[in-house]
Structures are given as C-alpha cells and as structure tokens.
C-alpha cells in the first residue's frame, strides 16, 4: 500500500521527534520545515548561547552556526549548561558541537573558533538568516549590530547582569537597531561586567530561552515579535516590564543619513584599543610584587579594599580595611592622608575609580593595585581562592 502523504523533508524518525511541534496549529509541517531550512548564527557560546544552542538544536533549527574562541572554565559551569565538568579546559565549540549533535543528530552545526572581528563579520553573517547576540562585551555587541544593519539581518538581542535582563529584536529594515537605543558604549570600567558584578546562572537561561523563542517565531513567521519593545526582566522581584523602542532618525548606522557605512574598529570605539588613551601614570599604580616588597620592608601602608562585603567574605589581603566603593565618599574620615594608601578590588577597575576619587579628595599618596586581588592571589599568595 502506498502511503498517502509521505513527507519529502522529514524521515519517520524526525516526525516522531518533532511530533509535539507538528500537532500545533502555529507550527505544523510547514513551520517545522521552515525551522529545518533556517540558518541561525549564535554569537557566543556562553551563558546565553547555552540555552539558545540547546533549545534551537532541539527545536530542529537545521543549520546552526556558533562563534566563540574560549575554552570551558570552571566558573562557566554555574550557568553555561552546554558544558559538563569534564569539559573544563576543552574548546567550547568542540564540546558544544558534540553536545548539540547529541541532542539532535538531524541538524548541521558549523563552528567558527575565532574572535568575531570587523574583518570576518560580514562574510560570516552572509550565510545566515538570523543573528543571535549572546556575547559578553560592548565591542562585539556594536560590531554585531552594525554588521546586521549593513547586511539587513535581524539581531535577536539579550543581555544580563545579576538578576536583570534585557531582551529585544532589532531589525533596522523595519525598526530600531541597538544604536538607536544606545548610540555609544560606556567608557571602560563605568558599567561593571558579569565577571565583576556577578550574574545569577538561571537568569542567563531565562533570557537565552526568550531569545530562542523570538528566533523561532521569526523563522516560522508567527506571533508578535519583541521588535520595538525592550523587555526588562527583574528576576529578583519576578517582574517583566516593557519599554517602547523607537527608530532614531539620526542613528549613525540605520538613520536617514548614516555616518557609519562600513564596519569600524570596535575596540577603539569602545575605548579599549591598546596604546591609545591608556597611557598609564606609573605613580598611580603598583604591582602586586612591588606592594609585597614594600609591606615586607615594614613600610606603613593603608590597604583599602573597595569591593562589596560578599566579596570580602571570599578572600581578602591581610591587614586591609573594607570600604565598598559606593560608601567611600562618605567614609573618607576613616583614612589618613599622610600615610600611603594602596587600594584594591577584584581586578583593578573599581579601585581605579576609588584611587581617582581619593586623589581628588587630597589623598595624594594613593596607588591602585594592578590586577587587583586576582593578581595578588596568582602572583603573591596562592593560598587565596580566586573567583
């Protein structure tokens, strides 16, 4: 007997696999075929990239590209659910590909083990219908945006910090882009990163899965997208807030008269280019080794820790006093302006701000510990844990 409606696209095995999609009116065979034909590029295989990769692979997105160049680190495992403990030290993309093909062997996975840059972004994006931004830094976010605008591709955007998330869909052909929302990035150090401020692991899962839903709706052509709406997620209060996003007619990349018509140097744009604007005043800074020598010589130094109390609980340098950065302006009377001060934080960014503030307040003998307690633990005192 001849089967009446044999699928051209799917094997019986695939039909069983996708059955919960196929019986939904919003997806059905046509929608699942669109998913199979779709080409989605994930920028970053980390906190957001993990749920994105797992759910898009499971959903049957036929062509998944992954861009990352990192190796799996122990501190990733709290949120990057693509990886297992035994993957620590392994290339993320190698581990990710293995895991995703384990989830769904019927899809094609391409890995690009490279740093996304102005030189390769356009060529890489060219082959994909949808770009999903799950990176962890400003230069890459602006690069992803500009490349998407120049190529006319949708950018499924998500970002996270502590318990807070921001999600939207940018598509400059029909609505705003990332630069319409944030024309320029913050100067380095002004907005703390997840490495400095922390992030709830599950929040990455929540935001990444919302991005995955947006990508799937876009592919299948159903529902109402987040375009024109910035979804703010507050996981601590479990509140979801929507803000209106508008296309900025003066946007430098998607506006009426764009000044950016090709990709630029994004490290420089974000103030991170080496040897530019980063000429360091040696007298303001001290290396862990120099500090150790001065302490050993018996010199009186006020060691000031400007991290948060919860970081102080993890580790501290002997003899230090804790005054979190936010409390510093109102606690200056605790410090002595005649004795040298060495200020530290985790990696040296917040303490750099503190050192500036103290210098301006008349504490001229203030120095910033380069690399923070992280560098101190690595170079001087390995009994301290790093975090």
């Amino acid at each position: 007997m001849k089967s009446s409606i044999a699928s051209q696209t799917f094997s019986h095995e695939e039909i069983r696999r996708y059955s919960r999609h196929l019986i939904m009116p919003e997806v059905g065979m046509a929608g699942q075929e669109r998913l199979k034909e779709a080409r989605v590029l994930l920028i970053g295989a980390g906190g957001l990239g993990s749920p994105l990769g797992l759910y898009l692979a499971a959903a049957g997105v036929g062509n998944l590209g992954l861009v990352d160049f990192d190796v799996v680190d122990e501190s990733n495992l709290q949120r990057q659910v693509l990886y297992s403990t035994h993957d620590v030290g392994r290339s993320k993309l190698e581990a990710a590909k293995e895991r995703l093909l384990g989830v769904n062997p019927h899809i094609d996975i391409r890995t690009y083990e490279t740093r996304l840059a102005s030189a390769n972004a356009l060529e890489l994006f060219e082959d994909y219908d949808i770009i999903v931004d799950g990176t962890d830094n400003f230069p890459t976010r602006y690069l992803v945006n500009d490349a998407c605008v120049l190529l006319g591709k949708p950018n499924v955007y998500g970002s996270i910090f502590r318990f807070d998330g921001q999600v939207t869909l940018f598509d400059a052909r029909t609505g705003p882009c990332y630069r319409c929302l944030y024309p320029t990035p913050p100067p380095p150090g002004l907005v703390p990163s997840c490495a400095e401020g922390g992030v709830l692991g599950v929040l990455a899962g929540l935001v990444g899965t919302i991005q995955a839903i947006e990508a799937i709706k876009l592919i299948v052509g159903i529902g109402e997208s987040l375009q024109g709406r910035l979804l703010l997620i507050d996981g601590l209060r479990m509140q979801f807030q929507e803000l209106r996003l508008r296309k900025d007619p003066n946007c430098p990349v998607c506006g009426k008269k764009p000044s950016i018509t090709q990709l630029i140097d994004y490290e420089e744009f974000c103030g991170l280019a080496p040897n530019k604007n980063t000429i360091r005043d040696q007298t303001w800074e001290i290396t862990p080794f120099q500090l150790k020598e001065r302490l050993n010589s018996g010199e009186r130094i006020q060691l000031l820790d400007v991290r948060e109390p919860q970081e102080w609980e993890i580790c501290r340098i002997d003899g230090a006093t804790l005054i979190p950065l936010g409390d510093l302006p109102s606690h200056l009377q605790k410090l002595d302006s005649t004795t040298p001060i060495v200020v530290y934080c985790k990696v040296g960014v917040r303490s750099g701000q503190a050192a500036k503030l103290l210098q301006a307040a008349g504490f001229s003998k203030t120095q910033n510990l380069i690399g923070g307690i992280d560098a101190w633990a690595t170079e001087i005192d390995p009994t301290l844990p790093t975090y």
Partner: protein
Amino acid sequence: MPSTLLIPAPLRLYTGGHEKLTLSGETVGELLQKLATQFPLLRTHLFDERGEIRSFINVYLNQEDIRYLNRQQTLVEEGDQIRIVPSVAGG
C-alpha cells in the same frame, strides 16, 4: 511632586544599594540632579561634562524614552515612574 526613581542593578553600587527612591521635582532633569547630589559617585555615570545624560544611559518616564518627550525638561506628575536603563553587555 513625589515621583519614584528606579535604579538599575549596575548603578546600585553607587547608591548604597538603593533600588527605589522617592524624590520631588518638576522635571526629569531636576529629579536626576537631586539623585546625583545625594549620591555623588553616580553623577559621572549619569551626566557627561556638559550635563547631558550619557548616551549609554536611557531614562524612561513610565514606558516612554525621554529623548522622544522633552528630554531633561520633561515634566513629571505625581506617581510617575522614572526608570534609568543603562546598557549592559553581559551574556
């Protein structure tokens, strides 16, 4: 007129952990100035050298971006929510 200012997580470091503040003022700019006076470390995060709101910070009056209202001169009414939304890169 008292309005509520909502401080996002990345900036709470500079407000002594405060998430929500009730301040009185006629305009969004006046409220932000009061906030920056109360928490001096926050000032450099909110305003540039010319007193303009920094471009990586968006300020929303209820659901609307004040750039599409009357910027810092936007009038506030009792019970309005002013939300500071900074760009965040984490992923």
